[in-house]
Each structure stands twice: as C-alpha cells, then as structure tokens.
C-alpha cells in the first residue's frame, strides 16, 4: 500500500463542453506518498481546472484520475464528494472561512461532513479537543476560538484554514495560492507551520511565486505538465 502513489493521472484531457477548446492534456503525472510538491501555476495555465480534477469536482473527458489507488474519475458525483472530504484537505487563496461559524466550528467542518475524518480526529480525544490542539499548535490563542472569524487577521484566517485542512488527517493536502494574501515573513512561517503539522501527508502547493520552490521536495510547472498548445 505504501508503495502506491497518492496521485496518478493517465492521459487526461479536459474541456468544459464538448465543443469548447481543449483546456488540459496531461499524459502522465504521479505523486508519491509524503511528497511535498510545488506546482508552479501562472494564471491561465489551467491551474483551477487541475485542482478541480484532483479534488473530484469535475471529471476528465478522457483518461483517468486515480487518488490513493481509487478510480476517482470513474465515480458518480456524490461518491467523489465523499471521497474528497474523506481524503483531501483544501486550502484556498483567501476567504476560507464561513463568516457565520466560529473559528472552532470552521475547523470542525470536515468532521461534520465525513465520518472518516471525525473518527480519525477523535482517536485520542474528542474532535473539539483535537481541533483545539491543532489551532493552538498553529499559534491561535484560546480566546480566538469562539470569536467570529471576521475578527481575525488574514494570517490568522489562513492558519484556521490549515487546521481545517489537517483535522482528521487526510492523505492529501491541496493548497491553492494560500500565501498570496500574506506578506513575506508570515508567508515563510505559514509554510513552515504547514509542513510541521502535515506530518506524513502528501502536499500539493500551487503558487505563481517561484521563490517558494526551494522549500519543497519537487517543483513542477503546470505549463510543463499540460501539453495543450496555448499558442
């Protein structure tokens, strides 16, 4: 099991509708367990499409997306939705949090939707205690936990997003430009915190900022992966 790659893409082709132009063609891509991948993605490179494919939001027109050796791209929508929350933690560029939930509730969201994440998080203690531990590990003090998320700074919000992505130990973390709203200092400490707490999870970190590449095991540009000629 450990030898099986976390992500496998085979001969992927994607277009929005049958007559739309081809957006993405990836003959082959593979990501090993525990790998930290830096995915360089300038805007317009098909970055969002690739993330949506990996997260099982959309299916490729041709080819196969396998996650954790499961044929994700062959499943129906609801099964892909369940798989997503069970095995993937997602971090967005910004606005990760639901404004009407507290910091704690935002962190617990994946546990509400996934029994697997809930069970994993509740291994040693209650899920609330687990969320609590994660948040304080990420440097968020106790008094912030029950505050409205709007009271938090952008940096704090992104750390809550990390806690949410990590709770219940999903195998794959996909972070889409999570540092673009942060300044240089907080950006570096953010990435350090992410690595530290992600432990053996596989990470795909998408960014347009080449300067971050040296922090990762491997660095790939989407323009190299995607063989569609964009003229």
């Amino acid at each position: 099991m450990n030898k099986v790659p976390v992500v496998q893409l085979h001969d992927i082709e994607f277009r929005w509708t049958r007559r739309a132009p081809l957006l993405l063609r990836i003959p082959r891509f593979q990501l090993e367990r525990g790998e930290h991948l830096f995915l360089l993605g300038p805007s317009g490179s098909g970055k969002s499409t690739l993330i949506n494919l990996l997260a099982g939001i959309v299916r490729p027109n041709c080819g196969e997306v396998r996650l954790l050796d499961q044929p994700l791209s062959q499943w129906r929508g609801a099964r892909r939705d369940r798989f997503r929350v069970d095995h993937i933690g997602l971090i967005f560029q910004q606005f990760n949090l639901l404004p009407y939930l507290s910091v704690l509730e935002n962190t617990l969201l994946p546990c509400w939707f996934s029994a697997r994440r809930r069970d994993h998080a509740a291994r040693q203690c209650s899920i609330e205690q687990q969320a609590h531990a994660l948040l304080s590990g990420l440097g968020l003090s106790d008094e912030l936990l029950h505050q409205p998320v709007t009271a938090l700074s952008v940096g704090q919000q992104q750390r809550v997003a990390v806690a949410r992505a990590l709770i219940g130990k999903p195998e794959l973390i996909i972070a889409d430009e999570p540092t673009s709203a942060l300044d240089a200092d907080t950006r570096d400490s953010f990435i350090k915190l992410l690595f530290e707490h992600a432990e053996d999870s596989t990470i795909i970190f998408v960014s347009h900022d080449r300067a971050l590449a040296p922090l990762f095991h491997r660095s790939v540009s989407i323009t190299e992966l995607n063989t569609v000629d964009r003229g």
Partner: protein
Amino acid sequence: MKYLLLISLKSFRNRKASVGLSIAAILVSVVLFTGVLYVRAEAKQWFVQTISGTDLIVGARSGPVNLLLYAVFRIGDATNNISWQSYRDIADDPEVAWTIPLSLGDSHRGYRVLGTNLDYFKYLRYGNKQPLELAQGLVFHDLYDAVIGAEVADALHYKLGQEIVLAHGAGKISFVQHADKPFRVVGILKRTGTPVDRTVHVSLEAIEAIHVDWQSGMPAPGQHIDAEAARQRDLSPKLITAFLLGMHSKIATFQMQRTINEYPDEPLLAILPGVALAQLWQVMAVMENILQVIAGFVVLTGMTGLLITLLSTLNERRREMAVLRSVGAGPKQIFFLFVFEAFWIAAAACSGAVFVLYALLALARPAVQSATGVALLIQPLAPLQWLLLGAVIVLASLLGLVPGVIAYRHALHDGLTMRV
C-alpha cells in the same frame, strides 16, 4: 443532514437584516390572511348567534336582507312601518304561539332605543335558544322605565335609577332630544354578545308618549305636552316597525309566511331567518371574496419578497458554496441549503404571525366589544387557518427550489473556484 440544518440555520441567522425583512413581509401577509379568515368566521358566528327560535320576521315590504338587518341586527333603518291592526290581526291567529313587536327610530347617545312589550323578555332567544336574563333590577313597568343592555350600562357607566333622555333619530349625535320626558333605568340585562347588549328597551307606550306632541317627525309648534300630562293621553300604539313571530307548529310556518306576504290590507313581508341569513351570506360573499383575494395577493407579494431575498444573496454566497464544496458538500446539499432557508423563513414568519394575530385580537377585544357587542373569542386556530399556514410554508419551500437549482448549477460549474 443534521449538520446541514445547523449550517443553514447559522448562515440564515448571519443575514439578519435581509432575512428579517422577508420574514416581516410574509408575517404581515399571513396575519392579514388568517385575520380575514378569523373575522369571517366570527361575523358569521355572530349573525347566527343573534337570532334563535324565531320562525318569521315580519315588516313592511322591502328586501329580506334589509328587514333582517334592521329588525334583528339594528343595522340600517326601516323603509316603512306597519299598522298595529295588521300586527294584532296576525298575532291573534291561532297558529301563532307568540310575537314580539319592535318599534325603532329613536336612540340614546348612539345606542338604538327599542320599543317593545314584556313578551320581548319572555320569548326572545339568542345563541343556543338561551333566554334573556336580567343582571340587575326588573323589566319595565312604569311608562318611563327603561331596561338597558350590558354594553350600554358598561360604556356609559349607568346604574339602576340613572335618568336618561332619548333622542330622536338613530344617529350618534342628535339635535332633537326628548328632554322633556326623561326615563329611568330599572333593569340591566346580562351580556349576550348580540345587539341586545347595545339596546335601550322601553315600552311601546313610552314610544307613543315621547312623540305624543309631535307631528310628521317634528315637535308640533305650540303644542307641548309634559311628561305627566302625556300619561293621560291615549298611548296605545298605532304603528310598529316590525315583529318577530313564533309558531306552535313549524310545519305551518310556510303557510303563515304566504298568508302574511299576501296580506290584503297592507303590503307586508315575512321572512324565514335562516333563508334571509343565507341571502346575507351571498351579499357578504362578494366582500369576503374581495378581501380574500387581496389577502392572497399580499401573501404572494410576501413570497415574491422571499424569492428576491434568496436570489439576491446567491452571488455573494458563492464563496460560501465553494468552501462547503471543499469540505465535501455535494451540489444536492447546496441545493437543500437554500430550500431549508426558505423553509426557516416561512416557518419563522408563520409562527410570528400566529403570535401577532392573537396579540392583535387581545388588544382589539375591548374596542370591538364596545363598538359591536361582539366578544371576540380567543380560540385555537381553525382548520382553514392551519391549512393556510401549512400552504405558506410549503409554497415558500417550493420557492426555495428556484435559488436551490441555481445554486446547484453554480456548485457544479464553479467547483472550488472562487468567483468573488
């Protein structure tokens, strides 16, 4: 599902202002509609309660509804009187068990004065064949005695022995008073919830007495006859306005009705209270229907407001949807989020509306009672009202399908992409 409900509830609470407004719009419309239903049921109840045990109502020839309204409900005026001879002639028929003569046309501070005889207190029935009862005092014996209804006593703070002056005409303000012949309150009736409560009762002779020195509806100039002198005159009644009639045998009622309607000496009209009430419903049905249609449109307006609120938030909630998608919410769940929200809004509005309706009833009760004599019943919701509340909630939830479907499509298409 449990968490989806929680999320929907919290999300909904977060947008208090816009959600509050659409709740208010639906609440007002539901109060209006249930209120209309309530008033309609109460009004019918009131009309049915007021007359009981009377077989025929007889008056001068006019419309049945008109006769019913002025003779029983003290609404409107008689077009003509009937002669005492005709009345006696019919009343003496062996088939007739009892009659109650009614003479209307005067008032006391806005309350109608009714001239009648002691048979009124003996034979008049209301509600479920209940007789009138005195709360205090006695029925009238002297010429200038008056028996007042409960509402008259309450509103004007009258006690036994109070002197009152009758006014000519039925208006609230009258310029022609029968000030020279004051009356004394000798009895106060128990409350009935019918127009009896708002009536001042005197004898037929008293009505004659106060008009003894009048000619053609005006005090005759230079012919004043004072109260004591009037006692010496011939006060036997010559005209009455209408009378109520009870038969020994109900079977003979139709025959008697025909006899009266074909009465040779005078054009008379006899009506069956039930039939006249049915005709009254028909007249009222037009008004009721108009009110209901208006109330229905107000409900629709409230619903449209709800739809506008839900649709207008769709765009600003796309980020929220993307976050929910990222933690495993499917398009179906996003869809339900909107349907739930419409449901919450309608449910909140309906429960608020029930509360407001009862609050309004409680507030309006004293005023309605003094104005009409109707004691509004604070009773549980009628099946029709429950049905309406249910319909509002179901309709709102159905309307929630519209933004639900749009959000479903957004969720499929946007995926994890933030379109801010």
